[in-house]
């Protein structure tokens, strides 16, 4: 069968009234939980799982997948409006998205996020259909040395995306990595910095830290500047894109989609790296990098496209190899297995209606998301009319309840409060939250892969350079680091001489 025939067959499955309905249900629910910080797609999907067993396997998969990529859509909303990243992949969206909102361009930011995501979602779905198996084989060649190199590259990207001084950026990343290493060391079983608290055994969660460092700090800083009197973000501005916006953003969307599609296939952290890498790239290729961090539309368009593309292509390992690439994919794999379908290469041939039906539903779902979300943008932006003295207690309550529902744990609420204070000190001393959070995510992954690679190679560090993919990634990291360091060092020296 040709691609067109297969896709048409897929549409005939996905476009039945009940499948359309469940697709709509999934993406709507996904948007809702994506907008609410804390509660993520994992919890929602597992809550709904028992109800889906009564459904046809294709229908249930269509809905569950919709929740997942719908949540990626919703995640950008709070990041742009109130500087609150609900998930790791929307951390970078805060950087320029929130600045755009402060300049009265929230509508534009939300629109480009939605359109970029739509484009990325459609491309991502086609990538699964066309090159799924090929890309899956590429991802399968990744082992610990490659992952280690990828993590190093990610950390260097975090340095590149930081605004202020290089030294502060490195400090923020290192502090994040350190915090990320708290917990029981998986390799040796030794407890590190847990003080005998079982709550710390699994380490410090990303969401409570992000809510503290971004959400709470933002409230505290806003209030100390204004005493809550001024209406923050009161201008609404236009919702649609100007010709200039489009001209600036479309390349970012294309590049972001490409990066996201590629990194999304890799298990563990791939999707997060996608959004960070896209931001770092946009800043590097921009003719005027100084605009970044002050409301550059490329800084929203690129990462948002990247994370949605990654959300689609992260299905590839599951659908073509039967290997789940993250927790949500493991959950979907469970859902398929409970229905008596063993995910793997056979699915494409033995259950074509399932494979192509799902892909067709992704195309439909992404369209539905834009249809749902575009009219919502007007409403979201109106929220910014609400006086800040009303808005901030609302944000705080949503943060508290959201963090609690993550694991039904009071401890996580305390962690959020603690990192609010820590984040405030970081903010005042010129250390940024985004590199800190990236360090937190990548630190433990980097350690795990470094130690495993060294164990497997019996202590021979040459594996990192003799394996081609790892060598190339490390080379890119070194070059990127050099590009970041050289201007900054010369700038610092220039400044020092001026002072003298």
């Amino acid at each position, binding site marked *: 069968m040709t691609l067109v025939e297969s896709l048409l067959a897929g549409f005939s499955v996905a476009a039945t009234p009940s499948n359309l309905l469940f697709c709509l249900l999934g993406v709507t629910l996904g948007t809702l939980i994506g907008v609410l910080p804390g509660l993520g797609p994992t919890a929602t999907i597992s809550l709904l799982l028992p109800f889906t067993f009564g459904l046809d396997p294709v229908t249930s998969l269509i809905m569950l997948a919709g929740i997942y990529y719908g949540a990626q859509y919703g995640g950008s909303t709070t990041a742009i409006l109130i500087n609150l990243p609900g998930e790791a992949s929307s951390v970078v969206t805060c950087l320029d998205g929130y600045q755009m909102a402060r300049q009265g361009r929230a509508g534009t930011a939300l629109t480009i996020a939605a359109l970029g995501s739509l484009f990325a979602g459609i491309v991502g779905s086609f990538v699964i259909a066309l090159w799924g198996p090929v890309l899956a084989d590429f991802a399968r060649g990744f082992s610990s040395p490659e992952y280690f190199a990828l993590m190093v590259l990610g950390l260097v990207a975090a340095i590149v995306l930081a605004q202020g001084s290089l030294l502060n950026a490195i400090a923020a990343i290192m502090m994040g990595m350190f915090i990320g290493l708290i917990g029981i060391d998986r390799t040796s079983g030794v407890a590190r910095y847990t003080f005998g608290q*079982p*709550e710390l055994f699994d380490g410090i969660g990303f969401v409570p830290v992000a809510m503290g460092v971004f959400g709470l700090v933002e409230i505290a800083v806003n209030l100390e500047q204004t005493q809550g009197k001024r209406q923050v973000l009161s201008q609404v501005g236009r919702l649609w894109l100007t010709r200039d916006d489009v001209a600036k953003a479309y390349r970012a969307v294309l590049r972001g989609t490409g990066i996201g599609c590629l990194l999304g296939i890799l298990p563990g952290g791939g999707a997060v790296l996608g959004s960070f890498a896209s931001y770092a790239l946009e800043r590097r290729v921009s003719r005027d990098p100084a605009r970044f961090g002050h409301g550059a539309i490329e800084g929203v368009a690129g990462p948002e496209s990247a994370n949605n593309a990654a959300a689609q292509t992260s299905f590839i390992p599951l659908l073509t190899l039967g290997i789940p690439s993250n927790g949500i994919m493991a959950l979907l794999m469970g859902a398929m297995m409970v229905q008596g379908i063993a995910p793997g290469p056979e699915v494409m041939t033995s259950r074509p209606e399932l494979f192509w039906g799902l892909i067709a539903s992704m195309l439909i779902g992404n369209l539905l998301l834009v249809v749902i979300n575009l009219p919502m943008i007007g409403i979201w932006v109106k929220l910014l009319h609400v006086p800040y003295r009303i808005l901030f207690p609302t944000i705080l309550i949503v943060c508290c309840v959201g963090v609690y529902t993550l694991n*039904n744990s009071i401890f996580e609420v305390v962690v959020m409060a603690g990192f609010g204070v820590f984040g405030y000190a970081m903010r005042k001393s010129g250390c940024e939250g985004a590199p800190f959070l990236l360090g937190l995510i990548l630190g433990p992954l980097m350690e795990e892969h470094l130690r495993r690679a060294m164990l497997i190679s019996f202590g021979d560090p040459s594996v990192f350079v003799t394996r081609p993919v790892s060598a190339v990634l490390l080379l890119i990291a070194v070059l990127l680091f050099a590009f970041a360091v050289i201007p900054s060092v010369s700038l610092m020296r220039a400044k020092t001489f001026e002072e003298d």
Partner: protein
Amino acid sequence: MLRNVLLAVAAACIGVSAASAQGAGANFPSKPIRVIVPFPPGQSADIIVRLLADKIKKQSGATVVVENKPGGNAIIGASEAARARPDGYTLLMAGTTAMSAAASMNANLPYDPVKSFTPVTGVALNSYVLVVKPDYPANSVQDIVELARKSPGKLSFGSGNQSSRMAAELFKTMTGVELLHIPYQGTEQAMSDLVNGQITMMFNGVMTSNPYLKRKDLKALGVSSQAREPELPDVPVIGDTVAGYSFIAWQGLVAPAGVPRETVATLNRLFTDALKDGEIYARLNGLGMTVWPVSQEELGKVIAEDKVKWRMLVTKAGIPVVQ
């Protein structure tokens, strides 16, 4: 005077609790039963309880609600269950992780797997299969043992969780071979590295291995259970080569210690009825597990035996104990 008041209050309390205990026996359950799952949503333990809750609702009308309390390798959820009121309305989805592993690897566990809980019923069993790459020059458990003897410490095994590691540690202790342990966070990456030839072998759950075995990405050398697995009829039992070897991970429901006998009996009936249902049997098989609807006594026996066996293994393998 004060003493009289206290006595009266105490008597009233006893009266009330006796009445409520009686009431519990007669029309238990009169409110929703809460099952604490010490894992995040979506893990097999969580899915099983949600499946059972659904089935029980249909069979008897009783409501079972799931409460996820993940963290600390299941210790957080288990501690909360151990502290709960022993009225039968709070249960813990226990298993090898919360009971055997936690008890043997933590010096200061806030509960005792035997003393803090009343066993209610077994739920599911999961046995392991020893897998290697298809072109690996070993076709039996015997071959692996010989290869490992020839080059001690050069053959490696991966593990994605503590049970998988323990299955291998038990194999090491019983055969006396030296194997290099490569730990992973979860099974998927370990399987991928195994297929790529980064690691030599792995003890992995039967069902997660099955798709790999079917498409000949891996080959099976032996199963960890005492009898051959219905899913893998051609794979011999490891115990045939290594006399006395057997390793099975289990999941079961327990209540805080001190739940009245008749309440436990009611709960056991409620859950075993659901487990014996054909649909649940098939769903659990789909997840790679065998249903295990056994009496509270049998579950209690397994918990006690495991505690001893795991502690011995942890000491022998030199696994550090969390202080």
